[in-house]
């Protein structure tokens, strides 16, 4: 029990001594919180983006097959789909119709997609929130589009997506097959690409290989690889942001070093008195350890809480533009609150570990001061 009692007394003393030097402590904590907040926001936001992407892709087809002509994607003949179906292990396969439409009014691209089942009447569409917002329209309004041959085509808005699908469906327009072909001039018998399901997901690689054998002018794309790419892209963005911010961490480390080295006359006298009344060097070291632990824990948790609020309550206004890297139609995106212990550990590593390393030697130097030298 005496051991715990000893630690408690030292913590008690450390905290009161920190409170006595309020100004210096608060200044350090403020900078510390700012660093944890900045880096934490980057990490939490990247994680939220990855989560969002994986949630969205969970419903994506397992494999997409595109036809390539001269290295460019071209229209996919419907006859190819039967050949794909004939491959063993392929479940359902169907052609997909979708495309981009550049809208000069908003200077942005809309995505048109013909869903598998579309329950609207002809000349009706369902649009994403971003489009509704930027064109200032709502349900039952008419939207005019320029078809491939220059004719004006009017389509009525049947509905607007709810905000849950904002990130992917913001610029999306769902349209019937007939209207799609009229708008873009895609001839009957062709689709944009094909999607297929595979009965056993372990066979994805083999089936992709077989497709390239049967249809040499096609390119299969697997969902798991797309997911991996998203993961890599967001990790890379997060890592990039961290490298950019590493200068700030370095500045913080220098500040912490400086604060720990530059003991005020009062602090020196305090340590001198402690040693004169019988404190051992290891006791003072312990005190210094608790001091940096108290500062680190306070700042770390305050920083994480602020970062959490910044990312999940305020949608990360400071970093979204850098980390999202998407087109202009995605202004409102509120990630689902999600915190991963792994990120907390990474954050701990890039903030607290450098701080601990920077204050190690100065703490020791302070702890080994000679009492007579200090109090003279």
């Amino acid at each position, binding site marked *: 029990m005496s051991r715990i009692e000893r630690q408690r007394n030292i913590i008690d003393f450390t905290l009161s001594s920190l409170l006595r030097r309020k100004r210096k402590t608060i200044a350090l904590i403020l900078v510390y919180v700012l660093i944890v907040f900045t880096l934490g926001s980057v990490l939490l936001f990247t994680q939220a983006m990855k989560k969002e992407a994986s949630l969205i892709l969970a419903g994506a087809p397992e494999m997409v097959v595109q036809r390539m002509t001269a290295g460019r994607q071209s229209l996919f003949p419907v006859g190819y789909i039967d050949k794909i179906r004939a491959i063993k292990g392929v479940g359902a396969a169907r052609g997909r119709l979708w495309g981009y439409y550049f809208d000069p009014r908003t200077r942005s691209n809309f995505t048109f997609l013909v869903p598998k089942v579309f329950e609207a009447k002809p000349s009706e569409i369902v649009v994403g929130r971003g489009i509704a917002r930027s064109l200032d329209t709502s349900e039952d309004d008419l939207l005019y589009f320029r078809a491939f041959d220059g004719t004006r085509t009017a389509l009525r808005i049947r509905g607007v997506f709810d905000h849950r699908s904002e990130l992917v469906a913001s610029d999306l327009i769902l349209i019937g097959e007939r209207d799609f072909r009229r708008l873009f001039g895609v001839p009957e018998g062709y689709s944009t690409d094909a999607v297929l399901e595979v009965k056993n997901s372990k066979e994805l690689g083999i089936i992709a290989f077989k497709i390239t054998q049967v249809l040499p002018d096609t390119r299969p*794309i697997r969902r798991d*690889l797309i997911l991996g790419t998203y993961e890599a892209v967001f990790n890379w963005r997060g890592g*990039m942001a961290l490298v950019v911010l590493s200068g700030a961490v370095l500045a913080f480390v220098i500040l912490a070093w400086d604060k720990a080295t530059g003991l005020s006359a009062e602090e020196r006298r305090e340590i001198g008195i402690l040693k004169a009344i019988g404190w051992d060097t290891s006791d003072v*070291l312990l005190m210094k350890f608790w001091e940096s632990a108290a500062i680190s824990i306070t700042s770390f948790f305050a920083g994480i809480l602020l970062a959490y609020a910044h990312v999940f309550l305020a949608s990360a206004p400071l970093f979204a533009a850098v980390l999202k890297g998407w087109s202009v139609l995605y202004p409102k995106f509120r990630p689902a609150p999600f915190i991963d212990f*792994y990120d907390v550990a990474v954050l701990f*590593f890039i903030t607290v570990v450098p701080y601990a390393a920077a204050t190690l030697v100065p703490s020791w130097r302070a*702890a080994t001061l000679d009492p007579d030298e200090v109090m003279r």
Partner: protein
Amino acid sequence: MIFDPGVLALLSGSFLVVATLLYASWYGIRILRRWDLCSGSQLQLSLERRTYLIATIMAYALGFQLLSLFLFISTADRLSSLLAGAMCAAGALNANKWGYPALILKIVNFMAAGVWLIINATDNSAYDYPLIKKKYMLLVPITALICVEAAFQTMYFLRLKPDIITSCCGALFSAASSGAVRVAVLPRKPVAASFYFCMALTLTTGLFSYTKGKGAYLFSLSSSVLFGVSILALINYISPYFYELPTHHCPFCILHGEYNFVGYPIYLALLTGGTTGLGIGAISPFSGVKSLQQTIPKFRKELILICLSSWLALFAISAWGILFSNLRMD
């Protein structure tokens, strides 16, 4: 190289630790060469002060090693989704030849730092620094090992070649045939039997040594054997019960949330038991030193208590996992 926050955190942390340890070893070597307790010179005084710094650095390094061990495994776990054919850390670490050596070195270095701190605590309990030369002699190889570990870890992350498409339109093809890691799969029953045998032996020798104050070497030896056997048992015998899947032998997946993070207490108990067991063996040869005659038996008793409770905890968690699992194997 994969540019991931976890990778950056591990690399920067390792470089920091290497830098502080090199600093510590530099003074360690000076202590080895210039230490003279009878002298009252300025140099001797400053060296005596340095011992505090080095001990603090080692304590921090120990904490760091523990955290970085788990972070390394979790990072490998994360990266597995980027590597064709890898499903968890086991596969990701196998992605190149540096992964497993780095992991093993992390474990070894954690234990080495722990043993060093145990020796240091023993030495500090005496008035005349009886073990000073020995412990600073040990500091140099530990620093070297940690440098090698940092190098291996760096090589691992640098040589990691993700087999991914760089954009949605890029061509994607991967001959995903890099087989899953083949862990030393041993027959289950002999492994289970030796696990129970070593556990029983360690607990008995530990109790004997605790009450009688004798047989510390035997206890240390059996604890070290138990450390190795436990890892094998974890792979071949215990973990399938947690997964409730007789074919799943992964030592890393038990760290996942799906299995209630049960791997963390298991590995903590394993590492603590292994390290304190080794530490007991390391300090026992010095129980004859005059200034340590009083302190070593007392200190050793504490260590045995920690060691025994770790092994008991490991045993309890494993037994709980096996008994309350829906998996039955015979």
